[in-house]
């Protein structure tokens, strides 16, 4: 499972199921073998290999990146439902592998997976309601190889993402958690580097924010661990 998002407004969490081409939403706090509240699955969905997911709890939408397109579903959609809109086309580009929503500034932030290691990684910023073939509003050139799902902090327009070693390395010193601004088109190193390079991380991946406690939570594949950093200055 390569994606997971918690919706604090409705107290639900949502996961993609890549093999069965499904998006599952569960009640928060469930334990054990509990059926999902809603499942999006079927021939109308256009789901191919959903790996990541983002939920816009404010505007009631689910965003699913599919590499060459982003599918947007109604948050309450269930069963064999069609996406309410799609973002795809030559101006959008490919490598649309991870998404985050900024409902405060009405933005959709898109990140690639680790597939484009030669050109490096960039984040594309679109209007939240972008549809069809649209150019991004701005581009943030960031880590060399994005390590997994990323998080955003809308009040300060910050992206939290992990950089991981490339060339099939299982671990390496080029591992860190970085913080970038998406206030305007930029290119360069992050505003903050945390836990690396040459730090504790070996192969970091996903990121989540604990805003109340001013902390960042990140997973690391090689450490097979989850680590929490206290960084009040970032928030």
């Amino acid at each position, binding site marked *: 499972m390569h994606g997971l998002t918690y919706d604090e407004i409705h107290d639900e969490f949502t996961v993609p199921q890549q093999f*069965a081409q499904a998006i599952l939403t569960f009640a928060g706090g469930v334990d054990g073998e509990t059926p999902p509240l809603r499942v999006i699955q079927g021939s109308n969905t256009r*789901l191919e290999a959903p790996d990541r997911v983002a939920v816009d709890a404010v505007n009631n939408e689910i965003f699913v990146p599919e590499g060459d397109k982003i599918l947007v579903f109604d948050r309450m959609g269930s069963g064999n439902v069609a996406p309410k809109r799609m973002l795809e086309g030559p101006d959008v580009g490919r490598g649309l592998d991870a998404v985050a929503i900024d409902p405060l500034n009405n933005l959709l932030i898109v990140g690639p997976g680790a597939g484009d290691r030669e050109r490096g990684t960039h984040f594309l910023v679109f209007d939240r309601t972008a549809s069809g073939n649209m150019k991004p509003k701005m581009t943030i050139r960031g880590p060399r190889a994005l390590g997994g*799902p990323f998080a955003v902090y809308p009040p300060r327009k910050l992206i939290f993402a992990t950089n991981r070693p490339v060339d099939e390395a299982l671990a390496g010193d080029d591992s860190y958690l970085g913080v970038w601004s998406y206030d305007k088109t930029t290119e360069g190193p992050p505003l903050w580097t945390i836990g*690396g390079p040459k730090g504790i991380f070996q192969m970091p991946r*996903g990121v*989540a924010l604990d805003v109340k406690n001013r902390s960042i939570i990140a997973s690391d594949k090689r450490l*097979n661990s989850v680590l929490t950093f206290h960084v009040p200055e970032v928030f």
Partner: protein
Amino acid sequence: MRKIYLLALAGLILWLAQGTLARPPQTRLIGHERLVSVEPLPESGGEFCETAEPAGPETLMAALQQRQEGRQAAITARNAATEDRSKLKPVRWIHDPYAAYSSVAVDPMNNEVVLTDENLFQILVYDRTATTPASARLTEPKRIIAGLNTKIEFQCGLYIDPKTGNIYAVNNDTVDTLVIFDRNAKGNVPPTRELYTPHGTFGIAVDEAAEEMFLTLQHDSAMVVFRKYAQKDESPLRLLQGDATSLADPHGIALDTKNGWVFISNHGAVSSRSPRPDARPSRRAAQKQNWPLERAQAVPGSGRNLPPSIIVHGMKAQGNAPPLRVIQGPKTQFNWPTGLAIDEQRGELYVANDMGNSILVFNATDSGDVAPKRVIKGPKTNVANPTGVWVDLKNNELWVANFMNHSATVYPLNASGDVAPLRMIRSGPLNEASLGIGNPHPVAYDSKREQILVPN
């Protein structure tokens, strides 16, 4: 300053109004610092610098050069501005310090048992008769293969060559390489042999007479057969994949060479595949024969969740061939059936029933919705999320790798019910549960309960 503050406040009010008035009625807006923050701008620490207008470039080249210099200056400035927290230590670190056994195989010739560890990425070799006393924290292995040179990561399948004792260990979905070690290998050593596999291999079985090696593929719901001694970029000899095969997130695999059957356990999630000219093959797939149709060839919207099953194919099956038999249904008790082992002498199939916390035993000829003939389950058994099983016919013993309690347990082959194991090897303290983290990718924070969600 006050003007900026008021503007920010006005924007906030407008956003709140848009949010509450324009949204569908089920949307509930709650005030939360995660979404809204208004802070006064910091006081300026020094004088403002007036921006000097640069002189206009006279040629295109000069303009481009000027732009390049400006861009470089901006990058340099940002480099200097990076706040370095590279040595920051985490305030909390969720990590299991002990091995989590995922698969098991016995080397009867050398009287050793080999276990893979999905938590710390190790292959551990013990004396077959080793047992961890209740008072001991753990049993030290005789040999450990581990480290970056070994290319071991999230290993889930294991095979011991009965002639040489060489260890075949399957990496699951992060390395795409089958690694083979000499029997006496130890430490951070490179594999003796490597085979580049399709993505998401799980189970392994070998037909020694035909010198053929069978691997299940989770991601592509397929099975591939290689030469036993295949290496590097060699193509599979055969491929089994397609809707008719009933393969659906396959895991364990076992061969009944006496009858020419291959048994495969399925968790049930699957999508259809169809060749797509626009799909880019993976790097591993290039120029290969009998390679599975990968995720890029998934048919949109064809995904489905089937009940868990064990399917039986002929050992020479290939293409989109239907199974000979299917064991499936509520009587089977299947709940993530994972590792498989065959007792050819007695005609019995052993199933590590992961989420059922049980070992299920079927007749090798069973079909349809049948109840297992024996079940090993209960508090005395110490079975906890078993993912690997092995039948040791020389010593009439059944081995179980328990993923969730740092133990491998041994039973007589006719064991049934809530029976205590004959022996137990532990990699960690008794009754200390494993964390169950295996290949964490995303994380999420449940702010309501202050909990971290970690899918695997």
